[in-house]
């Protein structure tokens, strides 16, 4: 029910009261009911929180994040209880830094956190605005601050997610990136109740970036390192992915995925611990399977759900 509708309900009740159709206590009772209904919508929704927590738990690995979510949940509960007892209750500063290689789940976690914090009632909307250097850094003097402000305005009530944040500091002394950082810091302090800023990027680059901006590090109380997935975890991720899409991996297909992943790991350390790589393999396999089935002409249920060894390929050919 929208706001307009809500005030209409009040108006109707008051009209009836004025015309002498209902008694005062009836009118007040109606108003209370209406109000409680609206409050329920805004208040933390325990069911939603639980559902999200389950969703978070189903993510493979990411132990640190799961622990953090539990911490925040407990903290909010306690703060609310304290408020009921009229004790001082602080709002939580939740700006975060995510460090990790590409494909280790940073964006996924940010999106999920947005939803969870929204359900807990910490954030108003819980949306995630993904921002990159080009969205923040302007082309001329004064342009940058306006751009940053606009992005912050858009992210209010949710999460502003800056991927490869160190690119802001790139470009030397005369670059406007520094101005962007300053404007950002101001924004995150001003709106710390209703905005969460997440800086994300590769581990080493992020650490260098934070070292060169000492004020920055202390403003982000939460640092999470996203470690590369182990081969076991990657296989689990692959299984989860196909399950979600209602497919099954045959045993030999699984073995082939494992072989491809371990080979990649030797060739290239940085992108190897990578769920995105797995996703690409699976999606490619699904396409390959479609072609194979179309050519073979057998469409039994078994055929439709099984991904075979031949479907798994390393690169597109």
């Amino acid at each position: 029910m929208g706001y307009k509708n809500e005030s209409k309900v009040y108006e109707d009740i008051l009209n009836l009261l004025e015309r002498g159709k209902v008694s005062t206590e009836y009118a007040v009772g109606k108003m209370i009911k209406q109000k409680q209904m609206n409050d329920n919508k805004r208040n933390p929704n325990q069911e939603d929180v639980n559902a999200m927590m389950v969703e978070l738990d189903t993510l493979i690995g990411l132990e640190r994040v799961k622990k953090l979510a539990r911490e925040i949940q407990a903290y909010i509960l306690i703060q609310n209880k304290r408020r009921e007892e009229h004790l001082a209750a602080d709002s939580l500063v939740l700006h975060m830094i995510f460090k990790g290689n590409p494909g280790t789940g940073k964006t996924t976690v940010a999106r999920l956190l947005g939803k969870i914090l929204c359900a807990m009632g910490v954030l108003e909307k819980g949306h995630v605005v993904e921002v990159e250097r080009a969205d923040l850094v302007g082309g001329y003097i004064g342009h940058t601050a306006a751009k940053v402000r606009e992005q912050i305005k858009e992210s209010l009530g949710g999460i502003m997610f800056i991927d490869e944040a160190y690119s802001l500091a790139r470009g030397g002394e005369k670059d406007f990136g520094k101005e962007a950082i300053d404007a950002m810091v101001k924004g995150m302090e001003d709106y710390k109740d209703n905005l969460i800023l997440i800086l994300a990027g590769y581990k080493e680059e992020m650490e260098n970036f934070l070292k060169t901006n000492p004020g920055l590090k202390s403003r982000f109380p939460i640092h999470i390192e996203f470690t590369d997935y182990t081969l076991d975890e990657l296989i689990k991720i692959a299984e989860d992915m196909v399950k979600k899409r209602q497919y099954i991996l045959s045993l030999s297909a699984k073995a082939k995925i494992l072989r491809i992943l371990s080979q990649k790991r030797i060739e290239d350390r940085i992108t190897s611990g990578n769920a995105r790589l797995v996703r690409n393999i699976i999606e490619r396999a699904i396409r390959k399977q479609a072609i194979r089935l179309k050519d073979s002409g057998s469409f039994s249920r078994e055929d439709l759900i099984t991904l075979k060894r031949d479907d798994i390929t390393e690169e597109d050919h």
Partner: protein
Amino acid sequence: MKKCLIIGKPNAGKTLFMLNFAEYIGLTDVEIKFIQNKRNVDIKKLSIEEAKQLLSSNKPYKTTCLQSMTLEIPVLKGKKEIGIMDSSGLIDGIHQDVQVRRAMAQTLGAIEESDIILHMIDLSKINPDNIIGSLGEVDYQLSKYGFTKEGYVILGNKIDLLERKTPLIYLQKEFQEHYIIPISALNKNGFSEVKSFVCRRL
């Protein structure tokens, strides 16, 4: 500017409280807006004494529309503005006079827009043998409504008329979850507590 609404049954002392509270804050003249409806607003400038003579009386239904004024409350070194609004009394059931009903509808409409609600209850009318009967349905409903509002407080008025504290104790027992400030709108007792309650929410 935050809005503060005074509600309660007729003749609970709402208007007198508003005027005496303004005096307590340090005003000598008040500018009162008489809000008949959204388009029809009269503004009158009165001294506090005149206003008391004119607006408050010991007969119920003296106030027939919302009467609001702006108070500047000194907070630390600065001042904070608050709009304080007096309303006409609420009664149970359906009143036969359309004028009164209209005023009550206006009062209820104002509840929704207010940040702070001062719910005035006349302690001298409380009968310890029959609390529920002497309070009336609307008072209970309003206290329930108070759970949904952060700045809700009950003012137990007319302590100057009490011989013993029993009615106050009974009232506190009846509304255990709410904060009750005993006051006397006439003698300005308990006003400092009201002031600090209001200031905390500015």
